[in-house]
């Protein structure tokens, strides 16, 4: 079996989850704790990939970053960067596509922290940065872990967007989901089955992990 689509999928999902972690925490903080105009609009923009077909996102991605567009030309001539049909493009597309899966669990975790707890720390003389580091982050660890795992799994399983902006270039954009699609098209059902089974198992393990983070079994009440 050719493992390279899986290695590429893992590389993409891991990089995407790590970049999203760096973007997601400050973004969730700003959305949870800072009042500013236009917040709802930004929130809706972040959540868009959850309701849009990936092809819509892919279409606009191509429109904006294709070598014929002004942005594409600029990136190509000044940074020697081509985003369409390349791994970097795939990474950028995946970051946008999986952004809500990172931001929302962290934002929910931040917003569930009791106001009194944060205010108590403030009136005890602690600056906001210390409270963020020592109270907000440690008490939101489940939300952060959920965001990390969800965005990893979501990137691992994406298909439409990858096909639109990455195509099917071996070792560059041919990720596991594309490899399954190609195998089926070529009637290589056994190989497609192997790929599909592995993706299925990974997704299942990821979901079991997320649900065990919630620790729901302890909440069952006798009645």
């Amino acid at each position, binding site marked *: 079996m050719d493992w390279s689509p899986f290695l590429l999928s893992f590389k993409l999902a891991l990089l995407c989850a790590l970049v999203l972690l760096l973007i997601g925490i400050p973004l969730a903080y700003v959305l949870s704790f800072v009042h500013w105009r236009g917040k709802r609009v930004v929130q809706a923009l972040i959540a868009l990939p959850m309701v849009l077909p990936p092809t819509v996102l892919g279409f606009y991605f191509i429109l904006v970053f294709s070598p014929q567009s002004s942005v594409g030309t600029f990136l190509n001539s000044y940074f020697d960067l081509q985003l369409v049909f390349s791994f970097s493009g795939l990474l950028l597309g995946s970051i946008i596509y999986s952004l809500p899966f990172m931001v929302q669990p962290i934002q929910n975790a931040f917003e569930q922290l*009791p106001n*009194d*707890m944060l*205010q*108590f*720390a*403030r*009136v*005890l*003389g*602690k*600056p*906001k940065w*210390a409270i963020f580091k*020592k*109270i907000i982050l*440690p*008490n939101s660890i489940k939300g952060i872990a959920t965001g990390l795992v969800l965005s990893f799994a979501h990137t691992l399983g994406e298909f439409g967007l990858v096909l639109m902006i990455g195509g099917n270039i071996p070792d560059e954009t041919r990720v596991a989901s594309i490899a399954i699609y190609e195998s089926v098209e070529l009637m290589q059902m056994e190989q497609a089955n192997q790929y599909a089974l592995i993706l299925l198992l990974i997704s299942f393990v990821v979901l079991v992990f997320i649900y065990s983070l919630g620790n729901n079994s302890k909440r069952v009440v006798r009645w």
Partner: protein
Amino acid sequence: MVEIRVEKYLEVGGAKKQFSFASSLEKNDILGITGPSGCGKTSLLKLIAGLIDPDFAYISNGAEILTSTKEGIDCPIDKRSVAMVFQDQALFPNMTIEEHIRFVNRGFEKTELERLLLRLGLDKQRNTYPDKLSGGQKQRLAILLALVSDPQLLLLDEPFTALDDETRDDVLSLLKECVELKRLPVILVSHQTAILQQFCTKLIKLPAL
């Protein structure tokens, strides 16, 4: 002398009603505030602590002005040296008692801390997390943290609701001791008027809004 004058429109039952308060405290005063539910007792403490924006306010701790809407002064919450203990013991679930204390004041004098822990009956629970503490222990820890933060004004919101009579008397005598020793002014909100009458040097009953 601590000086407090505040005005704020508070929302009560869907309508906005004006809340006003004016009083002053000497260095070793314990000011008791009582009144019916929803009369603005907790809001008053939050206004003093800087947790609610006032419509009008002049708050001074004697040494400096903390809030003056007229002069555009609004000292940041963490720089006011006004510690407040909340009604529902807002502790930090990820920290043990000892970690709480180290977080609030890393350099707090060790022998004094040991004495306070012993005095509040928390010396054996120093490595315990808040979810394993009783309501009374949580309340005592919250008060201990407020004292450890070395405030110039201490605000207590219904601090005795989770305490049994014996612990309450213990906490009261500790507070009295701190007031006398550190000349720490305290504002204490409670619906238990009898305790306030016995403990406070000054008592104000807020009218219903």
